[in-house]
């Protein structure tokens, strides 16, 4: 499939240059919110929105920000956007916002955001920066959704809160794997994804 050059920033982060498993950014939240599918999806949407907007703002300001204080400027822009996202979630999705607890606030220190601002938004025009933000947000989201899918399916037997493993399985001795919900298995699940991805790439 041939992809026009202007869309490259949107497409490469999905697999070849994935922010989580190739660039190794944003691991903290990718692991912590993936015990269930629903918070993972909400987190993806929040990070994508913040990342795209922050990329556009910083890219528009890139010629006026003095290099020596750029980190503080970036932090303030991102923090302001995250406050908006936090308030919106508290207003419209209170339960999920409670489940995500501190991790919404931690979008500020999500390395994907700082990494993309430094590496892309500071040297590119707003439109490619916007596409790069959306692309990296979705690339992050794909990993989150895959990890959360397996952890929720194997750990609680549900998907998005609905029971998918039928009752007769439990009656014949199937049991949920409680370890999948605990933190260490998130790391091992991501390691398996990295394994498959590198295998395909080579």
């Amino acid at each position, binding site marked *: 499939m041939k992809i026009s050059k202007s869309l490259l920033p949107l497409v490469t982060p999905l697999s070849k240059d994935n922010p989580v*498993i190739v660039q*190794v*950014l*944003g*691991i*903290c*939240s990718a*692991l*912590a919110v993936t015990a269930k599918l629903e918070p993972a999806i909400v987190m993806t949407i929040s990070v994508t929105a913040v990342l795209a907007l922050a990329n556009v703002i910083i890219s528009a300001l890139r010629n006026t920000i003095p290099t020596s204080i750029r*980190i*503080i400027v970036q*932090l*303030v822009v991102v*923090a*302001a956007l*995250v*406050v908006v996202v*936090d*308030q919106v979630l508290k207003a419209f999705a209170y339960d999920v916002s409670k489940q995500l*607890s*501190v991790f919404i*606030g*931690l979008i*500020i*220190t*999500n*390395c994907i955001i*700082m990494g993309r601002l430094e590496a892309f938004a500071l040297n590119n025009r707003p439109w490619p920066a916007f596409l790069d933000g959306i692309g990296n947000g979705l690339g992050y989201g794909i990993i989150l959704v895959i990890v959360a899918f397996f952890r929720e399916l194997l750990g609680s037997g549900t998907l998005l809160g609905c029971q998918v493993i039928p009752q007769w399985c439990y009656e014949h001795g199937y049991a949920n794997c409680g370890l999948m919900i*605990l*933190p*260490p*298995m*998130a*790391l*091992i699940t*991501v*390691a398996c994804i*990295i*394994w498959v991805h*590198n*295998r395909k790439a*080579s």
Partner: protein
Amino acid sequence: MENLNLFIRSIFIDNMIFAYFLGMCSFLAVSKNVKTAFGLGVAVTFVLIVSLPICWAINHFILVPGALTWLGEEYADADLSFLGLIMFISVIAALVQILEMAIEKFTPALYNALGIFLPLIAVNCAILGAVLFMQQRDFDNAWTATVYGAGSGIGWLLAITCLAAIRQRLTVSAVPAPLRGIGISFIITGLMGIAFMSFLGIKI
């Protein structure tokens, strides 16, 4: 006694890395050699110990609903808690900047050893994470907050030093090619997390 319990818990049970995955990015990026890993761990611990009481004071005297009563009766119903994130991240960024200048002035050797990782502590999730947990758990005084900061920092230091020591040994072992580098570090961290789960239930 309460504080000692909190200290032990935040090192072993609520470990920043193994229980909450905070500060994973620098944890994975800087853990290639024990010496640098230890230096970064000490710097993170120091920033945590300093920033937690300051953020506690800001939260307690400025942000929580009704906190501004000390300014006068007319401010008694002000609620500035939505400003929390911006205030905390600015305080942390400023502190890291001051710390950087102080280290450069007084111990140039440590400054050179830490290099770029010193300014990057500002965006280490472990710091902001600890501040947000402190706000969520609503500690009664600045001393408890400091103890929590020290415990979290030492827990992080312990984790990064262990991982760096294991990774130094890994260079001579036969890891499957697609897992080399970052993949195996994830698995090792996961196994260390399972090992740390055995501390669950410790109470002093």
